[in-house]
Structures are given as C-alpha cells and as structure tokens.
C-alpha cells in the first residue's frame, strides 16, 4: 500500500521557527489525528483514501494557521472558553481547506457522528451538542451528526442545523477580510496568530449559545414530531419553518430564541483591554470603622455575658456573638462620562467601614488606577484621571482577586461605556464584563450615589440589587435577545 506522509516542513508561519517534523501514522478516526505545532509532531492516517487525504489536509492546515504556544494566552484573555475556541477553530481550518480545494464537504467524516449525535441528545447535553455541531459545520460529518440528534430530539436538530449555518456564514464573512489565515502577531492583543481573533469573536458567541437553555419541544410538537430523523431539517416538524420557532414564547421558561443570540460585530482592531497599573496615593485621613471584629448581643450562645438584658431586652439577648465588618471593594469608572467627589467616597466608607475604593480610567500617564481609600484611610485629595475607560475588565478582575472573604461585596460603579485603550465601545468586551459580573456576583450600579445606597442596604441587612447601566442592557438585548437581569 502506498504510504502518503504529509510534508509539514513545506509550511511557513510568521510566529514560529521552521524545523523538522515528526509524523506518525494513525487510523482515520475522530480523535486520533493530532497536530502539535510547538513540538512539531503530527499524527495522521497515511493511506491513499480520499478521507485520509482530507484529514491530512485538515491537520496540515492546523499546522499552518492554528495557535502554537500562544493558545494559553487566548484562553487567559477570558473572552471565550477553550472548548468553544477549539470548536470554532475546527470551522476555520475546515473552511480554509474548503477554500483551497480540499473536498471537506464530501469526505471529512469518520462514520461515528450519528452515534455521537444520538448520545448527546439522549443525555440532554445541549452545550456539547452545540460545540460538536459547530466543530463539524461545513463537513461531511455535519449531516450524520444532526441525524443522530434528530432521532432523539427533532427541535435540537433544527436548532443545531441553524447554528451550523450561522457559524459558517460568520466564518465566511471573516474570510473576506483576508486575515483569516494570518499567522502574524496581533499587536493589539500581543498574541498570535492574528487569524485567531476571528475564532475568538465567534467562540464568544458560541459560548452564549451553548450556555443558553436548550430548546424544548412543546407537548404538541412531541406528539407529532416523531420521525426517522433523516433529512436536512428544513421541512421537519410540520409547520415549523425555522429552527427556533417553538422556543420563542415570551415569558416562558425556555428562555430567549436562539436566533436572538447573535455574534458581536466584526472590527478591524480586535478588542482588547489595557494593562491595569495602580498608582499609590498617600492615604492620610482616617475614617471611622475598620474591618475588625465586633461583639454584639445575641439570643443564643455559650456564656451569658449580658445578664442585665434578661430584664431590659424584649428579645432577652444575654449572650455575645462576634460579627465581622463586611468591608467591601468598590471599583469606580473614572472616565470622562462619570463624576464623583471625595465626599461621596467618604459616604461609601461610612456605609462599608474598612472598604477599598479603586478608581480607574484610560489615563495618558503610566498609572491608570488609584486606590482612593483602604482599611479605614482615605486620600486627602482625589487625583485627576483620564477620559477613556481602557481597563474596565482588569479593574473588576483585580477587585474579585482582592476579596478577603468570599462574602465581601464587590461593587462596580460604571455607566457601561466600557472599552479598551483608544477604542470605541465594543459588544464583546461589554459581554465579557457582564458575564464576569454575573459569575462573581459583582453589584453593578451606574452612579456613585447608587453605590452608597447599595452599601447602606447591605449594612442594614437588606438584599442589594444590581442596576445594570443602559448600555449593558442594550448590548445584552442585541446579542442575546433577552433582558439583562
């Protein structure tokens, strides 16, 4: 039998050194062919079948365009998950293979996709079904995978087909920019390859789709929605002409329509955050209250230290209990569209004794953030700060990392006009902030006065509420279709 070994040494990249590769054979089965650009190893089928040829082309394209040592850097940016980026990278690689003439649509399959689809639908694993549908989009694997899905869940089949088509459409739009296969360093993010910025953007959208509630069939649809699961899903489900019809009911438990979850805008400059550089201010003025412990009367306990309360206190709180000041971390967007005074900072500290207050902006100086108050001390004067934002996400990330206890409240005061250094407002960056705030229970308020009120509520034992800024609400509605809660 002819042994066809690929020639990765022929390929060039701007971001890695050229060198000799080690190529080992494997079976043409999903999961076995691999490419490691850093170690220059490739495992591919070497027989002369058409299927093996497109698999070799697929792995060669990975060797040509996929991230090498910087992949961890892309993950650390936190915009999209590793799983989503891997799935979308498959789409990019397959599309590029298709564009240069390899028959991906006819031959890139291993025959096991139908079973994969059945398994994912049967186990109700919507997120992985989305990732798999994306990874197989535009290849011969897509149809059998969706067939497997439809055998258990026709609505999922239609929804995933729709997602596959939309991913391909987005990737084709990215292809037209001419940078999809670029391996140059993206000077904005400092990462390579540049072409991967498209993958990150689409992967952020795929993450939202995967994390959305899975489409659920109504009782009526289940009754008449049975079938053999074959076909392309365009005419299934009776009158259902679109994948997401059936999940659009307003106010029902099934969430927003999947079609309403859309990718963020393609930009010429990939959105990125600046580096947070915190300047030191002399905190010279002392304020009342610190983070220390405090004893208060309690109705239960071990030693009755307050026996006099037995007669004077209606609740007979004769015991002691130790309470700890909650403190808190308040991050204030100090860009041109925001304003606050030192008195307001004082009020924040009165309502959250011992809290830390950080203000940030896209300053032209080396330092773009300042700690205005910390541990009961406050700066005598507020510093002048820049007009842009620049470091919104790094600032709230800093706040979460600085939390002394998991229960310490973090409050972010912003009008929602988030952006990277010298950039305009960007949906993807805004979504990153929104998701991060939701994940880490950060309270978001649009003005310092509302932060004071929120901290007062916490102090009084009332449940605080986030007041999402208008721009965040608008972005969320544009990209996800639903209301930001």
């Amino acid at each position, binding site marked *: 039998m*002819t*042994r*066809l*070994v*690929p*020639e*990765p*040494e*022929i*390929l*060039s990249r701007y971001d890695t050194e*050229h060198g*000799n590769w080690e190529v080992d054979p494997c079976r043409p089965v999903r999961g076995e062919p691999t490419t490691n650009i850093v170690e220059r190893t490739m495992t591919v089928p070497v027989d*002369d079948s058409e299927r093996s*040829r497109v698999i*070799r*082309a697929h792995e*060669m*394209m990975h060797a*040509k*365009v996929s991230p090498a040592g910087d992949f961890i850097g892309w993950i650390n940016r936190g915009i999209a998950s590793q799983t989503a980026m891997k799935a979308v990278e498959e789409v990019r690689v397959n599309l*590029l*293979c298709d*564009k*240069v*003439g*390899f028959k991906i649509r006819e031959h890139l399959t291993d025959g096991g996709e139908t079973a994969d689809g059945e398994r994912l639908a049967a186990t109700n694993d919507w997120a992985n079904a989305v990732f798999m549908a994306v990874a197989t989009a535009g290849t011969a694997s897509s149809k059998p995978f969706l067939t497997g899905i439809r055998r258990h869940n026709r609505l999922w089949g239609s929804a995933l087909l729709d997602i596959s088509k939309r991913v391909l459409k987005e990737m084709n739009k990215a292809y037209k920019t001419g940078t999809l*296969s670029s391996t140059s360093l993206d000077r904005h993010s400092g990462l390579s390859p540049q072409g991967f910025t498209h993958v990150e953007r689409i992967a952020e959208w795929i993450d939202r789709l995967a994390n959305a509630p899975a489409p659920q069939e109504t009782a009526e649809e289940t009754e008449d929605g049975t079938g053999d699961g074959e076909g392309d899903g365009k005419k299934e489900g009776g009158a259902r002409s679109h994948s997401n019809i059936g999940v659009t009911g307003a106010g029902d438990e099934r969430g927003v329509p999947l079609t309403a979850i859309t990718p963020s805008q393609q930009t010429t400059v990939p959105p990125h955050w600046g580096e947070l550089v915190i300047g030191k201010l002399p905190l010279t003025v002392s304020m009342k209250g610190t983070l220390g412990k405090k004893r208060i009367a309690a109705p239960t306990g071990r030693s009755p230290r307050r026996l006099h309360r037995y007669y004077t206190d209606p609740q007979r709180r004769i015991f002691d209990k130790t309470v700890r000041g909650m403190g808190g971390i308040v991050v204030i967007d100090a860009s041109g569209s925001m304003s606050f005074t030192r008195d307001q900072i004082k009020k924040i500290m009165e309502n959250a004794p011992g809290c830390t207050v950080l203000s940030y902006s896209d300053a032209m100086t080396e330092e773009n953030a300042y700690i205005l108050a910390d541990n009961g001390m406050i700066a005598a004067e507020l510093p002048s700060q820049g007009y842009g934002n620049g470091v919104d996400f790094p600032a709230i990330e800093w706040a979460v990392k600085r939390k002394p206890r998991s229960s310490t409240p973090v409050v972010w005061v912003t009008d929602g006009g988030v952006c990277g250094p010298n950039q305009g407002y960007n949906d993807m960056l805004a979504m990153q902030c929104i998701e991060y705030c939701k994940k880490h229970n950060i309270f978001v308020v649009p003005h310092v006065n509302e932060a004071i009120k929120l901290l007062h509520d916490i102090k009084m034992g009332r449940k605080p509420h986030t007041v999402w800024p208008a721009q965040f609400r608008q972005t969320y509605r544009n990209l996800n279709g639903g209301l930001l809660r």
Partner: protein
Amino acid sequence: MSQTTLPQCWQDLHDAINNGIDRIILFGPPGTGKTFAGLTAGNVQAGAHRLICTEDMTVADVTGTFMPNASGTFSWVDGAALKAWNGDGINGGRLVADEIDKAGGDVFAQLLAMMDSHGSATWEHPETGRIHRPLDGFSVIMTTNLEDMNDLPEALADRFPVRIRINTPHPDALAALSWDLRDVAARMADAGPRRISLRSFMAFDNLRKGIGKEKAARLVFRDRAESILDALTIENKA
C-alpha cells in the same frame, strides 16, 4: 553575489572571506550551493580549481602527473592544488576541495601538506626540482556533507578554524525559481530526512510549465508527489 538581506550563513561566509580568512569549511545538507560559493565567493580572479575527493583518487589529482602528449612523449600536468597555488602567476588562486574526508590516506596526507600555512607549505617538482610555494592570496574552501565537525580528522580541523553550516540555498540561486517555490525550496533544503534539494525544485519548476504540476510532481517527487502538492496548495493559497 548580492549583498542585501543575505541569510545568516551566507553573510557569515562573506564576512569571513572579506576579513582575510583563507581556510574555510562549508558543511551542511547537499544542494545548497556550497561548492558554487567556494568557486565564486570573494576574489577569485586568480582562478578557482575544484578537487572532488574520492577513495579512488590519487596524489596526481592533487599535485599533478606526467601525461602523454601529442608528440608521443610525456609532459607534466599540474594538479588542482598546484594550479591553485600558482594562481595567475602573481596571486594565488582558490582550491575548492569537495568531500576531503572521503579521500584515501596518502591523498589526504598530501592535501594536508598543500593546505598547510604559507610558511610551511612547500612542494618539489619531480622533473625540474623547483621548490613550489603557494603564492599570496591562495585560499582553500572545503565542502562536506558531514554534519558533525567533530568527525573531521584533527589535523584537518586544525587547518580550518572557520566552519560555516550552509543550511539554505543562496538567494541568487533561489531567484532562478518561480516565486511560489523560493521560500519552500529554502526551507526544504534543510528539512532533515524529508529534505528536497534545490535541484529537484528547479526540475519541478521547469517541468510544470510544460506538462502541468501533477505530472511534473510525479516525475520529480515520485511517491511524495501528492503530499508535496497538497502542502504547496496549503502553503500558497491559504
């Protein structure tokens, strides 16, 4: 040869020659133009003489021998090393010794003597008895495909303090190829077990213009044709 944007190895060679180094070893994969460089790099106005070393060669190839002439007698014909010593009669020429490590023992010893430093190198003509010395300007460039310079005999290594690994074809040689093959040919010249020589790419480039790339690849690259064509497609079109 052009002096702009030279790969490091070629720049090193030019630097060495231009700064008076007259004993240089060029080593590395075949087909990168080491011999061509030896014959042309630097000042070779006094002549450059090539000596291809094999196990079967004799000292006659190095210094010279008596050969039959038209008048039915024998006359002396200089060998490559002696020709290079004498150069144009005013300045010494260049001796380019290919694969000196493959020469037999007696030839190797003679070559060492001929490559010795100017003060030590002498040779007595067997017919005239005249003592020959290398003229000023005599230089030696030795080429070999050996990768480990520790494999060189110590006496030889001692005579050649500057050793340059030529790992990519000279840009002037690559310029003869079509643009889509130039970078590829440069990389594949030093691609280990799967290396493809510049000559193969030149043959492929010429053939494809006449018979198409599939046929040309089959003729030149044989069982690697499909893989190489696929890789070229990805490299140039993606």
